[in-house]
């Protein structure tokens, strides 16, 4: 049984969040390209920031979509975002520097088709469906790409499938020890899919507040960034991974404490070891 939620107005309008999310995600993903120019891996943490920006946009899209009474469908919205996005992302990595733009276009096309199928062929007839599925596919593609850039230092297909290891003093090419070959892409998929749906899933209800939900999204993004930074120690230099880890921990601590403050602000009461309050009639 799901709780029926009404469309809640107020706060920053969705279009504004969408444009800000799109621009900042693309900018952050391109900033990881500084790695290639400077021949270091120090700028990988921008991939994590791209993830946070994309998730904030995506979780608000889920809110727009799921306000039409799709209570138990919130987690599946996250899954379809990443299921459709990862296809576009994988194909786009073949295009080198153009990868983020190609991912944007491809994901939008896939999302548009999925939205059309669910609205017109499966007859769901939810007004926001086509636009929301398009946006979520793009968010999914960008999030996985951000994780890829953060964990492996780049977003080209060769970089994601191969790595160079030293064996008995000789450099050898390894496919198993890479972002895709090692299966880390599966972890990135689920890290993003849970992080994108959790904020609205956790904050839905009559007392929903936009700032609290978006703060939780940022918290989920930075939390995912922490573990992604730990995984990146295996694929990029220790110093670069350490920068990502420190950025992630600072961001997480700030957003987590802010989310606690906002929950305290919105909660009916903040009690420690107290009994259930008396209510009339029960």
């Amino acid at each position, binding site marked *: 049984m799901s*709780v029926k939620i009404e469309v809640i107005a107020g706060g920053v309008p969705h279009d504004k969040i969408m444009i800000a999310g799109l621009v900042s995600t693309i900018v952050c993903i391109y900033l990881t390209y500084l790695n290639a120019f400077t021949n270091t891996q120090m700028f990988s943490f921008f991939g994590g920031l791209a993830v946070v920006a994309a998730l904030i946009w995506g979780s608000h899209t889920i809110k727009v979509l799921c306000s039409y009474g799709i209570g138990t469908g919130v987690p599946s919205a996250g899954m379809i975002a990443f299921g459709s996005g990862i296809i576009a992302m994988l194909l786009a990595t073949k295009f080198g520097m153009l990868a983020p733009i190609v991912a944007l276009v491809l994901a939008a096309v896939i999302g548009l088709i999925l939205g059309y199928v669910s609205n017109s062929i499966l007859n769901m007839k939810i007004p926001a469906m086509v636009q929301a599925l398009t946006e979520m596919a793009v968010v999914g593609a960008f999030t996985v790409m951000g994780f890829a850039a953060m964990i492996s230092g780049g977003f080209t297909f060769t970089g994601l499938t191969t790595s160079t290891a030293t064996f008995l003093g000789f450099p050898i090419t390894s496919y198993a*020890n890479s972002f895709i070959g090692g*299966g880390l892409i*599966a*972890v990135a998929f689920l890290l993003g899919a849970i992080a994108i749906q959790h*904020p609205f899933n956790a904050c839905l*209800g009559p007392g929903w507040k936009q700032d609290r939900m978006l703060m939780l999204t940022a918290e989920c993004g930075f939390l995912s960034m922490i573990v992604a930074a730990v995984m990146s120690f295996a694929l990029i230099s220790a110093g670069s991974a350490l920068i990502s880890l420190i950025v992630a921990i600072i961001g997480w601590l700030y957003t987590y404490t802010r989310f606690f403050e906002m929950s305290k602000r919105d*909660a009916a009461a903040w009690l*420690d070891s107290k009994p259930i309050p008396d209510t009339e009639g029960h």
Partner: protein
Amino acid sequence: MENIVFGIGITALTGALATVAGSAEDTESNIGSQGDPNSQVQLAPQMGFLHRIFNKAVAGEPPAYGLWCALGAGLAWAFMAMQVNAILAIVLGCILAVFVQGVYATTAYLGRTASLAKFGQPVYVDIIKSMTTVTMAHAFIAIFCTVALCQLINGALGHPFPLPLLALIWGIALGAAGSATGNPYYGKERQYQNQKFGAGVPISASGNIVRYAEAGERNSIDNGFFTHKIGGSASGICFGLIVFLEIWRTILFERIYAGWGAIAVGVLMILIFTVIDRYIEVWARKNYGPYTVAKEADA
């Protein structure tokens, strides 16, 4: 022959690990009211039944455990790539995965409860402190056992999938086993102990979950204690059997007709289980009968 004996040994070990994982997973999700019983815990304050039950559903159990196990395995894989010993790597990976699980649990409880402010449901800080750690401990056991069995499948049996991908698949299977086997016991029996047995959950009783204990007010640790005896064990047996039978048929029969033997045995097992399930269903209907008296349900 030695290969087969070795394989059967590994199969037994993975089955045992899976049994422990299933049991811990179900208890963890019951303490956190995850899975479908969550909707009633979420609904209760809206119907005027304020409670002290922990409500930390992050997603359904399968996707949530898919993430925790894949994350534990991904981190373990990364530590192993950094030349850390496998056992230590798995433990470290699972500790970090459990940290993520714990943070998600606190934000889920806070977010949900704060959004129910209109109905007067307070946030209990002592619940966050005491329940989160208990769910984290159970989640650690479940994740560690699952990642360890995936490492056995990958390392000892030579499965071609990388560790995180295997853990994703078995994590989803673990969540599904716990959700399908253990949740009915928590949701329909424990939360609705005040209803007549077999009555289901009538609309009039929606949200009227059991909130008071023999002495004082019930919290989620009581629920975990209660459901672990039957719900937890049943989930453990369920997941243990899934893992054991799956690997057992592969080890023994995959040489027959280039792998088709294992598939044929798999189909045969499904048929056998269908017959057993049907027999139990008919037996239960005959002994307990359909629930017909509608008036008693309202009482």
